[in-house]
């Protein structure tokens, strides 16, 4: 019995020792340098693989930062936080500007509120429909509502509301810009995360024309401009824009808008 324990002790010890030596030796002759910074970067990048940085996934971006000297602020989901950490690893301080942005769809028109030109039969895809006469809505600027953006959003931030228009959940959105890229009408635009209001219309047509085809479209009446003396609203090309840097309450403008197309985001959700 005792002899077996001794055999066990010796044989396994020798086996382990030999293998250990072999591995240690092998790791020396087969040594391959891998930049540790890449693995470190991979760890701090969010791992969403959303591609907003323009590289194939987070590890692709990590490699690009180290090997190709790619910009360090490209990770939209990670935002300022990650950018500064990237800087730490790379040994530089990174200037990060601004607050987190989120995408919003600037149109709350549905097929009930806006006039329809034709009876569309085909693929449920905004780009496909847009190829036929710019979509079935008489308004050429609005959201077509077939949800191409929903399909591309990597974090499922976009959904259809009960009222029938689409809404983006600002807490989920990581500002990757994919929806903006895919949308054929350009109705999605970035706004600051803290924004509380949007003008839910994208029509640059004259008020009279808008009235003809949409009951919730901005008619460019400049009411909002008047009701927000601090410069919160500006009308250009018959469409109202919000200057999110201007302080001040917007309730009055919301009340005053005859088309009711200025929306309180918290209510819209």
């Amino acid at each position: 019995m005792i002899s077996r324990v001794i055999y066990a002790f010796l044989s396994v010890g020798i086996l382990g020792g030999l293998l250990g030596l072999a591995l240690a030796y092998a790791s020396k002759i087969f040594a391959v340098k891998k930049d540790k910074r890449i693995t470190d970067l991979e760890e701090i990048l969010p791992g969403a693989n959303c591609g907003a940085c323009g590289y194939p996934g987070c590890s692709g971006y990590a490699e690009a930062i180290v090997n190709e000297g790619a910009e360090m602020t490209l990770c939209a989901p990670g935002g300022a936080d990650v950018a500064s950490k990237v800087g730490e690893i790379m040994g530089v301080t990174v200037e990060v500007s601004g607050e987190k942005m989120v995408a919003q769809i600037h149109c709350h028109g549905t097929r009930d509120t806006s006039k329809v030109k034709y009876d569309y039969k085909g693929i449920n895809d905004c780009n496909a429909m847009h190829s036929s006469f710019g979509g079935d809505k008489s308004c050429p600027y609005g959201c077509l509502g077939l949800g191409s953006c929903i399909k591309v959003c990597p974090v499922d931030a976009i959904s259809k509301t009960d009222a029938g228009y689409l809404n983006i959940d600002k807490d989920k959105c990581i500002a990757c810009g994919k929806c903006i890229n895919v949308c054929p009408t350009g109705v999605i635009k970035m706004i600051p995360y803290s924004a509380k209001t949007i003008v839910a219309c994208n029509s640059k047509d004259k008020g009279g024309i808008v009235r003809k085809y949409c009951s919730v479209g901005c008619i460019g009446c400049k009411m909002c401009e008047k009701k927000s003396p601090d410069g919160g609203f500006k009308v250009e090309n018959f469409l109202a824009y919000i200057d999110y840097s201007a302080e001040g309450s917007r309730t009055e403008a919301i009340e005053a808008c005859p088309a009711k197309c200025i929306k309180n985001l918290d209510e819209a959700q």
Partner: protein
Amino acid sequence: MSDELKLSISSSPQIHSPQSTAKIMWLVVAALVPAGVWGVYIFGLRALLVIAVSVAASLAAEYIMTIVFKSGNTLFDGSAFVTGLLVGYNMPPEVPLYVCAAASVFAIIVVKWTFGGLGANWMNPALAGRVFVFFSWTSGMSKWTMPRILADAVSSASPDTVSGATPLGFVKTNLMNFTGTSSGPIDFLTSQGYPVHSYLDLFLGKIPGCIGEVSALLILIGGIFLILIKIVNWEIPVFYIGSFALLTWIFGGLNFGNGFFSGDPLFHVLTGGLMLGAIFMATDMVTSPVTRKGMIIYAIGCGFLTFLIRSYGSFPEGVSLAIILMNIFVPLINRLTQPVKFGRLPKEKKND
């Protein structure tokens, strides 16, 4: 705001052939009816009950799944009906009703809808359902009844040699303990006093077996009809049956202690649901390859596996297992048999 009449806008082509999914499915149902009617005729109303329960369970499962997954109503596209019908056709007439219902439910819910419904499944639902219940309730799935029209022949044969086995099952299980010589299955059946021993009976369907598989003749007629109206490609049944028959002919005699090239392909083609499988089940478009070349490879694979399982496996028939095994290979076959693009032909010599 959209009250006036609007013209439809659609992408080209602006016209369409008269075919549609629903038409295809209901035509398949029509082609299946004769074989089923025959089954009910020879096995009695119990067989009809089995078919009805299978179809009802299949439709019910389909209905529930369309609600669960909030997809449009697909009951009338006929595909669940075909699945249910084929499940019923693949059941012995005396099968407990919960077994055939379970097969249908498994087929529709697990095999079809888990993957997203019509067209998304990669395994033949009806066959997977059958195999599932076969492995679960093996004994319930192997209780056979003699056709009513054979009553005379049966009563004259000794009852315990024929306690309801299909010709194929009878030959296979009894061959294990058989020590005499026999030139082939038909000879063997005759020598053992089995009540069916003519090719004609096999062809017409006067044999025990699954409800819908017995009448090779009526299945063949339905199949030819489907081939003529271009719903079924001829390649799959022909290469399936052909390769199977060839292998049986070459090696099938070995089990009887005879040499090569002495098998009895006719017997094997007419029994064990091969016809039903080759014509109606291996041809399910969803679970078979998309190109001609692929179909041929797939069909030969089915033929080979059916032969292998029949001759050497533990189960008498091999059709259902062979087809679902080949279903596994279909995506691979599709990958390997992409169509050849136009413009690949090398440029002709300018001066010829």
